[in-house]
């Protein structure tokens, strides 16, 4: 809320003028950037971007045999080509081409091993879409785990038990006091190294880097969520706990039914901010061989050299993710209006 009404009222012209100023400023910024790119002769090739979302291509299918094609048969599951092969006298051998294949040979054509006999069209998710998916997966797991860790730690932080309280404080201070990038390195190169080595000793496969990434983000976010939860619980008036206890409820009943529901509504806005941060921080996971959106973009830029378009696209994708999360939290906030 702004302090509307504490100063003299402004005329409608005042608002119109400044709205126009905003739009002009926005256009000017974009224009300047475009002009700058044009001055260094940058070739905008936006048409190259979609292929990084969904890649369509054709691949050659080569013959496994030398001999003569005897039959090209179309079946529902694909095309079957039968050969009278030189090294299989007296019988027909066959190659089955998958769906989407188109045979380039007719019966009675002579072919040699390695000749192109068909083309197959295929399409698959591009690298950006795959990266986006990894970012979504990592962030979702980390958010869910972060809420759990944060809730438990926040409650421990407020506990009268010194072991729980000091434990929570130690965890929060250590995590908040060191850079996330360093924590990611620790998870991957220290924890990951040790855990994978131990698993190897008992003959188990190692854990995928993705899960070390989820752990790093969840533990990192948990510390901040804990402080948010603590502040939310402390913001509920002391009289609420007293009223609940005076009715005979136990501490945990009062916490679950009276305090936490009221705290929940108040912690939603800061929680949303924290999780938006988490989605953006997941871009650091590229350093530990998790190909999330940022790493995927870097690889795409390396191969295409269309850095401006791709980095803009990357930023836009993060914006879409964070905006969707923000909308979802606003929806929750409206529902939990009491």
């Amino acid at each position: 809320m702004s302090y509307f009404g504490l100063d003299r009222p402004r005329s409608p012209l005042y608002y119109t003028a400044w709205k126009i100023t905003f739009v002009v400023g926005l256009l000017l910024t974009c224009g300047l950037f475009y002009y700058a790119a044009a001055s260094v002769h940058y070739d905008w090739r936006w048409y190259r971007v979609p292929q990084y979302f969904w890649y369509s291509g054709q691949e050659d299918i080569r013959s496994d045999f030398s001999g003569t094609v005897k039959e090209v048969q179309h079946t529902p599951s694909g095309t079957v080509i039968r050969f009278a092969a030189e090294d299989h006298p007296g019988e027909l051998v066959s190659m089955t081409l998958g769906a989407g294949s188109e045979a380039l040979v007719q019966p009675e054509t002579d072919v040699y091993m390695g000749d192109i006999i068909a083309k197959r069209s295929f399409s698959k998710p591009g690298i950006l879409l795959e990266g986006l998916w990894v970012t979504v997966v990592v962030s979702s797991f980390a958010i869910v785990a972060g809420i759990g860790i944060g809730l438990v730690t926040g409650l421990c932080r407020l506990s009268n038990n010194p072991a729980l309280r000091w434990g929570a404080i130690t965890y929060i201070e250590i995590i908040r006091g060191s850079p996330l990038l360093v924590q990611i390195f620790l998870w991957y190169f220290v924890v990951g190294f040790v855990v994978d080595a131990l698993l190897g000793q008992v003959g188990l496969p190692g854990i995928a880097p993705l899960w070390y990434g989820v752990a790093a983000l969840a533990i990192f976010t948990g510390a901040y969520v804990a402080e948010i939860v603590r502040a939310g619980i402390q913001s509920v008036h002391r009289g609420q706990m007293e009223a609940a206890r005076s009715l005979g409820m136990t501490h945990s009943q009062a916490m679950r039914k009276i305090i936490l529901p009221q705290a929940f509504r108040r912690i939603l806005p800061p929680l949303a901010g924290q999780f938006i941060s988490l989605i953006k921080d997941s871009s650091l996971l590229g350093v530990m061989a998790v190909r999330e959106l940022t790493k995927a973009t870097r690889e795409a830029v390396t191969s295409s050299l269309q850095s401006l378009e791709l980095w803009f696209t990357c930023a836009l994708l993060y914006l879409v993710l964070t905006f969707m999360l923000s909308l979802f939290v606003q929806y929750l906030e409206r529902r939990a209006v009491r």
Partner: protein
Amino acid sequence: MIHAKHVHKYFWIPHQLHALKDVSLEVAKGEALVIIGPSGSGKSTFLRCMNRLEYADAGEIWVNGTNILDVDCDINKLRAEVGMVFQSFNLFPHLTVLQNLTLAPETVLGRSSKQANEKAMSLLEKVGIAEKCEVYPDQLSGGQQQRVAIARALAMDPQVMLFDEPTSALDPEMVGEVLDVMRTLAREGMTMVVVTHEMGFAREVADRLVFMDQGAIVEQGTPEEIFQNAQNDRTKLFLSQIL
């Protein structure tokens, strides 16, 4: 019903204070006891000691045959038998009026929701706001909220009711409706301990009046004895200032 023996209470925060100095008091079953006194005299602290919202530092407080200062006593069971009404109502803002009344009977006493609802509705009728059962507390006036708070305490079928300045946070025109409810309760024979500044109510309803000052009970007696014939100078001074 309640028997406090030589109760002492200290506060260290924000500064050291001997809040209750050797307070002894007995409340009989069915008695309406009113505690009066200047602010800071320890009357609210004493009341809060009776259901251990404040832990008295020395002495004994027997409620219904149990010493609640005994660390092994089942304090939750005891609090369920002692209703409390606060100055600032302390209704649960995220629950409807009806849910405010049914939550504790269901979770603490294990009543079915049907039982709890019926009991709640009859209590809301008694305090005169049955038609508001589905609204949230912040849509009610202060007087209505305090009546809901009284009904919430009554929903637990308490044996004693403690009132901690129940009308002090109310607009003047709403004091009457709350006092009416309390008057009815007293007439029905509920054991009540009331901390209040409402002298008219005290005179009319109290079986016994207790005057506290500086953490100690200075004088007690029937309303007539106190109001017309106070023996202690401090009591006389307080009454002359307030009446």
